[in-house]
């Protein structure tokens, strides 16, 4: 029993993370039946890249057809709209959508998928500092590690919500998350990982849900 408790504690122990969410709302979300939301990552910056797994995570957290939130996966959307949502060709401003809609094929596919909102997420998670050292030894008598390591991670993401049908910016969200992970090693290394990116994803998804369905109930 005691062993099970220790193992469970080790599994569930993790470093602390703080998440700060800011919101700027120009209009309330209005999702009708059959409407879809697309979540896309911005990939035009040269020194960082919005992680595809973060976009997938926000999409997974938000996707809830029972509440009227239908998310089109990023990869599927980018493929059906190829080449108009590639890093080089993706619209950077809401007003650029008008020019894109002059393309009949794109307009037809957008309508067929019932796209109401396009959410652009821009940012990344980075390791900002690390300290400590762990050394491991293998010998005929056995193997073991000794030491202590720690590292800080920071997430900084901004989501812009575009109302595709009204061709306007509905609002913006930002998620800043910070966390420190620890790894003490006494024979066995015990990782206490701060899930910074995951917490930023969950925070952003929760806020986006409030944004898209303000009442929190099923949309009509």
């Amino acid at each position: 029993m005691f062993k099970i408790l220790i193992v469970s504690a080790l599994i569930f122990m993790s470093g602390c993370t703080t998440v700060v969410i800011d919101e700027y709302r120009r209009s309330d979300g209005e999702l009708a039946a059959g409407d879809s939301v697309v979540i896309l990552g911005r990939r035009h910056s040269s020194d960082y890249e919005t992680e595809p797994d973060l976009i997938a995570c926000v999409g997974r957290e938000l996707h809830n057809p029972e509440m009227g939130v239908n998310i089109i996966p990023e990869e599927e959307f980018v493929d059906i709209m190829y080449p108009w949502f590639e890093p080089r060709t993706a619209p950077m401003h809401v007003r650029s959508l008008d020019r894109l809609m002059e393309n009949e094929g794109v307009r037809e596919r957008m309508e067929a998928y019932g796209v109401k909102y396009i959410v652009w997420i821009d940012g990344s998670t980075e390791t900002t500092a690390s300290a400590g050292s762990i050394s491991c030894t293998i010998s005929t008598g056995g193997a073991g590690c000794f030491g202590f390591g720690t590292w800080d991670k920071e997430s900084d993401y901004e989501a812009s919500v575009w109302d595709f049908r009204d061709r306007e910016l509905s609002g913006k969200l930002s998620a800043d998350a910070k966390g420190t992970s620890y790894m003490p090693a006494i024979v066995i290394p015990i990782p206490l990982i701060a899930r910074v990116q995951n917490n930023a994803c969950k925070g952003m998804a929760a806020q986006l849900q409030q944004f898209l369905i303000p009442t929190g109930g099923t949309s009509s």
Partner: protein
Amino acid sequence: MKYWIKWASLYHLAAVSFTALLLAACSHTVQVEGKYPSPVGEQLPLSVGIYLSDDFRNYTYEEDSEDREEWKINTGRAQKNLFETVLGSMFTNTVSLVQYPENLPDNVELVIIPEVRELQFTMPRETRVNIFEVWIKYDMNAYDPKGEQVASWVITAYGKTPTAFLQSQEQALTQAINIALRDAGATLYTGFEKVPELQAFLSGKLRSASLQEFKVKSRKAE
């Protein structure tokens, strides 16, 4: 004596295996396999022949400098798929040419031949940024049915991918190359009509097509 031979063979086998292991540890092989979506948009009213040479179809980039580990990156099959898909969707009619300039079909108005000029990549430890980056440069050539060059232009493609937990260098590089190839397709598709020589060629074709249409209508009216 018998035993001595056996031990010597074993020793050689071990030495060869160890050397092979060391060499394998420093060399990387990447085979890029990719399927690419067809572009969405209107087709240009042209009958185009696409000639992808054997060098292009089997293109392998080999990195063999002293500062880097050995890399063999085969992008041939992936870029063949990309160019066939993108060019195949761009025009009203496309023909894959097995050889050029021999046996050119009569209905072909323009022949497009891409060639790889350059491929470059950087690893996270070289740039101190947590991303793998790839650049590919293509020389594009277009010829008329007589074999005269209509246009020659360059396509530059860029792809990057962040480092991911439990992802090997090979996987990350493959992902970055696939993104670069998608970028090449996007540039080819959106930039084709912006090449001045091709613009002139297209307007000439459209003019002659509308002139022929006008003549047919006039004859019918008579």
